[in-house]
């Protein structure tokens, strides 16, 4: 699976802006994603970002905070989409509920919640109709069952190349920070679209480098 995923991932950077690869698809999430989710938190993040896009958000803010002193990892996605009523918020954590007609069961948030709770964490959803939704998941950073963040760059690129909303991204880890806003990138580019292949290449490198700069020590060292 993984090699096919990797191949698909690479191909998607070369094909058009709509990423069709199995693991990083904004357009058509496949069940295969779920099998990979427990091995990589970035796929959960992709799922939440996708919810925001489907809710008509024009701006999504993703914040990843890794605090080694308090041993917490938090992932927060806030959007300005159409929001949900209290009743909808209650239902969204129910695995048998989804607003989508193409998939019978909406597993995204319930599975993310289970992953967080398994690692002494929690997942909360706050929302206001017409204003937007915020999803926040927390984990014990050093918990043995906490999956690594995984390919965050791939997730961010999928959202950026889908080109449906602005993305404000902040990753703080152990005193270091990487931040960017697609609105500022767009302002600098002027007429050139974000999906232009040269821009895409540059973005990929820029984000990968930024992420590398805030990556904390290899997970396996936690046990030794």
């Amino acid at each position, binding site marked *: *699976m*993984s090699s096919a995923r990797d191949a698909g991932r690479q191909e998607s950077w070369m094909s058009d802006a709509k990423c069709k690869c199995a693991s990083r698809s904004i357009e058509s999430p496949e069940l295969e994603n779920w099998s990979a989710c*427990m*091995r990589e938190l970035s796929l959960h993040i992709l799922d939440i970002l996708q919810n925001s896009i489907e809710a008509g958000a024009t701006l999504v803010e993703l914040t990843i905070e890794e605090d080694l002193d308090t041993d917490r990892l938090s992932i927060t996605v806030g959007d300005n989409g159409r929001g949900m009523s209290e009743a909808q918020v209650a239902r969204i954590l129910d695995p048998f509920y989804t607003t989508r007609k193409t998939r019978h069961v909406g597993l995204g948030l319930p599975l993310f919640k289970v992953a967080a709770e398994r690692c002494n964490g929690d997942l909360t959803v706050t929302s206001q109709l017409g204003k937007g939704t915020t999803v926040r998941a927390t984990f014990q950073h050093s918990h*043995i069952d906490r999956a690594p963040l995984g390919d965050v760059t791939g997730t961010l690129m999928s959202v950026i190349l889908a080109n449906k909303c602005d993305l404000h991204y902040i990753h703080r880890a152990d005193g270091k920070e990487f931040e960017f806003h697609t609105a500022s990138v767009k302002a600098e580019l002027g007429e050139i679209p974000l999906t232009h292949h040269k821009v895409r290449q540059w973005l990929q490198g820029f984000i990968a480098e930024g992420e590398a700069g805030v990556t904390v020590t*290899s997970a396996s060292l936690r*046990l*030794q």
Partner: protein
Amino acid sequence: MKLEELAKRLELEVRTAQRKLDAEVTGGYVSDLLSWVMAKAQAGNVWITIQAHSNIVAVANLISLSGIIVAEGVTPEPATLEKAEQEGIPILTTQLPMYAVAGKMHELGIR
């Protein structure tokens, strides 16, 4: 049964720590939750999983597993392989589903 023979019988691909294949396999354990493996697997067991990050090496090392079978065609991350080589933990890969690996091990008399 030695790990080497198990690898041969199940046509597993040996990815790391060739030098440790003479380990005696004392049994098997199947799980993708590392905490359960740490709590339940016994020394000398072969662990069957689809987890591929480098924490699996740390767990195997900590509880002295004889090896890890990464099943279902999952490709272990380069960092995982590197760490496993260093620590002398054999990682073996297969396209077989975890259920099939466990079943075949049972058939071979590994209980």
